[in-house]
């Protein structure tokens, strides 16, 4: 194991074909996850968060092309690794939990057998060992009566229980990094709270690193150390969670936070006018500028990720408003 961050993604660019040539739906996205750290990759539908997650283990749909970038996991660039060697990482050192637990499980196999499959491939355990390990994993993820649960079919379980099975399956390979793509989006709030608690617990117990993909800022706040906000395929802002949520720099992050309805008080949320541009209609320069209340002439050219001028280590926004101007720093 080498020193340094566990995962380092740089310049990740994913393209889809269009009549006018390839369009970058994920455009030079980069982020870092330290060992034991949880990073939230957040944004609205179409921002590229799920494609980014899938590209880490090269699970992209056929139409999407990994055009550039590196995915360094523990020092090894997974993007450049031959398929055979990548299999030693996929599901083993890096595991995924998907959004829809009903679609991610095989409906005609008992759930225990599906977890055993992972143990067979990645850990070469014998039959009896596998069954013991499944029971242990099911106990770990909070499934009542682990042995009995293992004999059930997916349709006999509730949504929350199915999600626990998927998490057990992800943990079966003893991964160092878990990529979780909105695993609570289809669950009720009280069940969501249970699953979030489980993630917090697992992180502590196993020292897991977590890449949390999501659109719900409240959920991210209860789990993440740092966040990266995506808009239309590009990083808009990144930084420590408390910094970004309390003092957002990018007008998009500010708009997103203002648009969130609050439980505490009746304060009509303000929507962001317009909509996320579809890939074929992306504007030149800053991709947010058509919806941005603060847009000005500079926005016609693309902003780089500009670090916050004062304090806030690691907080940066891709916005010209934060480019250092004479007299801005004190």
């Amino acid at each position, binding site marked *: 194991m080498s020193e340094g961050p566990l995962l380092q993604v740089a310049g990740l660019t994913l393209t889809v074909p269009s009549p006018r040539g390839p369009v970058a739906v994920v455009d030079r996205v980069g982020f870092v996850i330290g060992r034991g750290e949880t990073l939230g990759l957040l944004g609205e539908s179409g921002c590229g968060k799920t494609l980014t997650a899938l590209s880490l283990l090269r699970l992209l749909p056929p139409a999407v092309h990994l055009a550039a970038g590196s995915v360094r996991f523990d020092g090894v660039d997974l993007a450049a690794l031959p398929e055979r060697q990548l299999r030693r990482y996929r599901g083993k050192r890096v595991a995924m939990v998907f959004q829809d637990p009903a679609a991610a499980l095989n409906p005609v196999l008992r759930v225990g057998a599906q977890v055993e499959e992972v143990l067979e491939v990645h850990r070469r355990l014998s039959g009896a060992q596998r069954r013991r390990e499944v029971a242990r994993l099911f106990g770990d993820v909070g499934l009542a009566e682990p042995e009995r649960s293992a004999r059930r079919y997916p349709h006999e379980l509730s949504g929350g229980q199915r999600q626990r099975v998927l998490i057990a399956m992800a943990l079966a390979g003893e991964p160092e990094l878990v990529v979780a793509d909105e695993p609570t989006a289809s669950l009720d709030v009280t069940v969501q709270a249970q699953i979030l608690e489980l993630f917090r617990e697992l992180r502590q117990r196993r020292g897991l690193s977590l890449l949390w993909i999501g*659109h719900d800022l409240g959920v991210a706040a209860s789990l993440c150390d740092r966040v990266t906000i995506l808009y239309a395929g590009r990083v808009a802002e990144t930084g420590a969670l408390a910094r970004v949520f309390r003092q957002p720099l990018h007008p998009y992050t500010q708009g997103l936070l203002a648009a969130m309805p609050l439980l505490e008080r009746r304060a009509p949320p303000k929507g962001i006018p317009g909509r996320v541009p579809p890939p074929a209609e992306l504007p030149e320069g800053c991709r947010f500028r058509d919806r941005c209340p603060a847009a000005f002439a500079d926005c016609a050219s693309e902003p780089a990720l500009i670090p916050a001028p004062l304090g806030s280590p690691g907080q940066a926004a891709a916005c010209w408003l934060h480019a250092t101007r004479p007299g801005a720093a004190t």
Partner: protein
Amino acid sequence: MSAAADNGWRLRLRALEVRYPAEQRWLRRPRRWARAVDGVSLEIPAGETLALVGESGCGKTTLGRAVLGLVAASAGEIWFRPPEAVRRQAPGLDALLAGRGRDGALDLAALPAAAWKPVRRALGMVFQDPSSSLNPRMRVWRVVAEPLLIHRAGSAAALRARADALLERVGIAPVLGERFPNEFSGGQRQRIGIARALALDPALVVCDEPVSALDVSVKAQILELLLDLQRERGLSYLFISHDLAVVRQIAQRTAVMYAGRLAEVGPTDALFAAPRHPYTRALLAAVPAVDGARAGRLLLRGEPPSPSAPPSGCRFHPRCPEAFARCAAEEPGWYRAGEGAAACFLAEPLS
């Protein structure tokens, strides 16, 4: 006289029950029934919003569908009182009220299917998923005009003009009326769905998770639109949702539903500030906050029961952190709780 009626309630449910056969036996009576809605009483004042909140399977959607006559009520009453303006517009409604009405209201639960048509135009519905609720092969101006066509409300040119006006009102440029639903984003499609729901000038609109499928930045836009339209037209909303933060923004009153029954009802602000039923408290505590304040507090164990085998006594007692012996044995009645009411022994006044 009629003005006073207009200011009263628009919808009043009395002990509404909707049940489905849980175990169907061919040509025989079902052995068990699942009560999706089990004895719910509530009221929506004219021009106000009542939010019905709860988790999946609690019966909130079934209740909404029963109000619209899309599923039959098995027992109980659904009183709907149309305002004067709607009575003038809907042919046949006055005759219906004269025949079956009581105090200017109709019991929809007792209305035979053949008599529904004049009532239906006074009721609107906005669905959760704007992509599956709009006909993909119909140009959107026709999607919006279709209810008018069905109720023969005007000439072809008048229909188009009305559809254009509705589209414009919900923020869709009328020139886009020639396009098909798939050419619009999720938020725009929901606007089109709202325009369609308003086509016949309803008095009561049932909104079933109208913003749940939308992104945050768009969600807020649609909520603003719904609030504006309510102010403009004096609409009453039955707003069905699992999202408590959204409900906080839009509803004057909130009813919390659990396993087919109401757990707590009250003015939204009071109910959110001081929830009395342990289920309401748990539900509120489970909503993740941006500042992380509520994270991990008051975690409920387990999941809601199946409606075909509800627990004895209070339906929440197996999951309730404060349950005691009486909760399993006896069903709690309604007790005053702050400005509202809760179905919980803990809210019972000490005698």
